[in-house]
């Protein structure tokens, strides 16, 4: 997945059409991230919509000349975290549907079902870097921009998550 920078220089912050023109190309990426973090397609749609609304409300604070994508992905990730956190009202997946999906996955490949369960038991920060790296194909520099940590810390966090998932990575010399 490409991550060509979308740099915002001059936008009328009061114009939602202009805002949507800017962000619409990023929505598939945002939706993909939300799905990876939340698992449920409907939750992912909710999260993207809420994130876009937040982005719209705070677009005036966006630093002009910066890349829009990491900014948006950060908001989406935060919204996904908020959805999973201690909400008075929280959406949980139907046990029946979950077990059916798990049964189907287990029938296909038990290792994949195990990996799925392990992924969704990772802490949010680790699941986020795994999704950014391996589901959205971002570089560690891009992950660093999105998560607000250094590139080195992003690598370290990703490798720790992979160890927990029992997916031992081959670390190349340049990393």
């Amino acid at each position, binding site marked *: 997945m490409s991550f060509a920078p979308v740099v915002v220089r001059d936008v009328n912050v009061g114009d939602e059409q202009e805002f949507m023109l800017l962000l619409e190309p990023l929505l598939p990426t945002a939706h993909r991230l939300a799905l990876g973090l939340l698992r449920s397609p409907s939750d992912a749609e909710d999260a993207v919509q809420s994130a876009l609304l937040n982005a719209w409300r705070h677009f005036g604070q966006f630093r002009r000349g910066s890349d829009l994508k990491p900014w948006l992905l950060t908001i989406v990730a935060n919204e996904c975290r908020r959805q999973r956190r201690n909400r008075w009202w929280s*959406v949980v997946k139907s046990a029946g549907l979950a077990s059916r999906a798990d049964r189907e996955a287990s029938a296909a490949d038990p290792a994949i079902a195990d990996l799925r369960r392990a992924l969704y038991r990772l802490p949010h920060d680790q699941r986020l870097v795994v999704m950014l790296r391996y589901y959205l194909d971002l570089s560690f520099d891009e992950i660093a921009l999105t998560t607000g940590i250094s590139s080195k810390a992003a690598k370290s966090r990703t490798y720790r998550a992979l160890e927990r998932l029992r*997916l031992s990575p081959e670390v190349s010399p340049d990393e």
Partner: protein
Amino acid sequence: MNDSEIRERVREAVGEAQYPPDLPGRVQAQLKAPRRESAHPRAIGLIAAILAIAVVAALFAPRLLTRQTSLLQPAASPAPQSSEIPAQDLAAAQLTAVASLVDPLHLVAQSGSQRIELIAAYADAARTVLFFRMTPDAGLPMASIDDAYGFLNASSSGSRGVPGDYVFALNAGPRPGIDGIAHLKVLITGVQPIGPGASTQGHWTFAPDVHVQGSQPIGSYPLHFALGSWKVTLEVIELTPSVVHVQALIDGATVGDVEQKFMTLVDSSGHEVRQIAGGASVTVPQAAAELEHVQEHSGQRPVGTSGGRQIQAAGGGQQRGPRGRPGNPRPGGFERQGPIRRTPAH
């Protein structure tokens, strides 16, 4: 394993995202009417919501509690001593009134420099509550719980007791064996500080055996009634030693209708019962391909009251009243009192 192989496995595990083509349109409509953000309808013809409300008995009269718990506690359950559990921890868990039903434990797990002790646990049909002691005090442990039958999938909350102690409450009860005991597996993969600060990662596991307190259903179910355009099936109202647990299936609600607190329990004197947790998910009719569930937990238990109990929801209200006095519930003691009383929507 190289990056490509990891990527392939992660994608197989997560599945490919089906981007909804109407999402930009919905977002734009939402931007134009931001106040309606929570009321967007889903593209599902029929949406049903299951609502569960748990209400804690903060005002529970001790004498009534004694009588009630004697009915609810399994005969085989020994009376555990909970003197070692700080009162502040019990209060944080809304379990002060049923302290004698909390199982003291001394299970310790260490990962890196973080030591976590599971000092106590409580479970009933609606809740699973774990008391943790953190050394050092790094914050709230993020736990997932399995019982003997699998993962307990429900919303959860956390709170703080005495310094270093944290309460983790899952809004679902474990499934006990025939001995009334649930064999749990608790996995903690991270510790989240209360307030700013980085989370601590690690791997702590516990395998506590916890008595599951019984519940007392009020009335017979299911009960069906209409609430405005909704068709409501009241599936459960039950008393556990600590909470009132209400679960309903609502046919016709949208996620926007139920994602905020929209249902309240009021006692016979008209006072709202404090809700401690709630959750909702959307589910799908059997004839359709997909459904969701809405589930909620909240509350406080109106014990010592008599007469009717009202459930009020957005769009109207419904009054139900137990025939027997609370504390003396009996099967079938829950009946409709005349026609449904509608109240204006809030």
